[in-house]
């Protein structure tokens, strides 16, 4: 299953609902394009909802890191929401779990943006 995204706005935060796989090729490109487009519109508070992402490979992890640093370098914030166990475990073993701001409650996550 390839990656799909849809975006919605909640209290000034853009929530990107992602589903499928974030892997080398299409999935990584879609994520990059979505984040780039949001930044171009000045939407710098981004919450990536990964609740329906069942698979990420090393390229997908790299794309998450790239999105995180790109948003941060433009003065914004990118946080992760609803990690599946597989994605959670991957971020743990790559020591990225503490780098990303990871949330498991959407309302709380939205409020956490400054």
């Amino acid at each position, binding site marked *: 299953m390839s990656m799909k995204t849809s975006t919605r706005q909640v209290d000034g935060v853009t929530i990107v609902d992602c589903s499928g796989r974030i892997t080398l090729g299409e999935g990584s490109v879609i994520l990059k394009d979505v984040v780039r487009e949001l930044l171009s519109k000045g939407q710098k508070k981004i919450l990536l909802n990964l609740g329906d992402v069942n698979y990420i490979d090393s390229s997908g992890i790299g794309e998450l890191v790239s999105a995180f640093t790109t948003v941060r370098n433009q003065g914004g914030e990118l946080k992760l929401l609803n990690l599946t166990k597989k994605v959670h475990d991957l971020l743990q073993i*790559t020591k990225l779990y503490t780098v990303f701001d990871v949330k498991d409650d959407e309302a709380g996550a939205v409020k956490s943006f400054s």
Partner: protein
Amino acid sequence: MDSTLETVDSAEQAASRIATEAGFDDDEVMRIAMAVREAAVNAVLHGNAYDPGKKVSLAFEQTGGNLVITIKDEGKGLDPDKIPDPLAPENLLKTSGRGIFLIRSFMDEVVISPSQTGTEIKLVKHVHGPSEGVKEASQ
């Protein structure tokens, strides 16, 4: 197999099927399939650099209580000693360089054999499941 992203997906799917047949549980199947995917990505992307004239070979063998997966490319040869540690603080925010680390995390043994004619990576997982004697290869 051709040096394409389709080969990466095919290798992952084959690994998932064979690991399932070998009796691994769902979590282990996912880890083995991801390790094979990462090795295939390295072969296609970094080894053969998508060169249509270069091939990737993939072989599965279950022998002596191990599932052994061998992936070879025809690239310049990967020097494993030159791969930076992706867990080092200065590398944490790099956008690449985690493939070999994930492979080593998910498999019981990993042997990387570079040469001037390409790199062979051998992945070994100890089998605890019921079936034995699976053998499959594709060029």
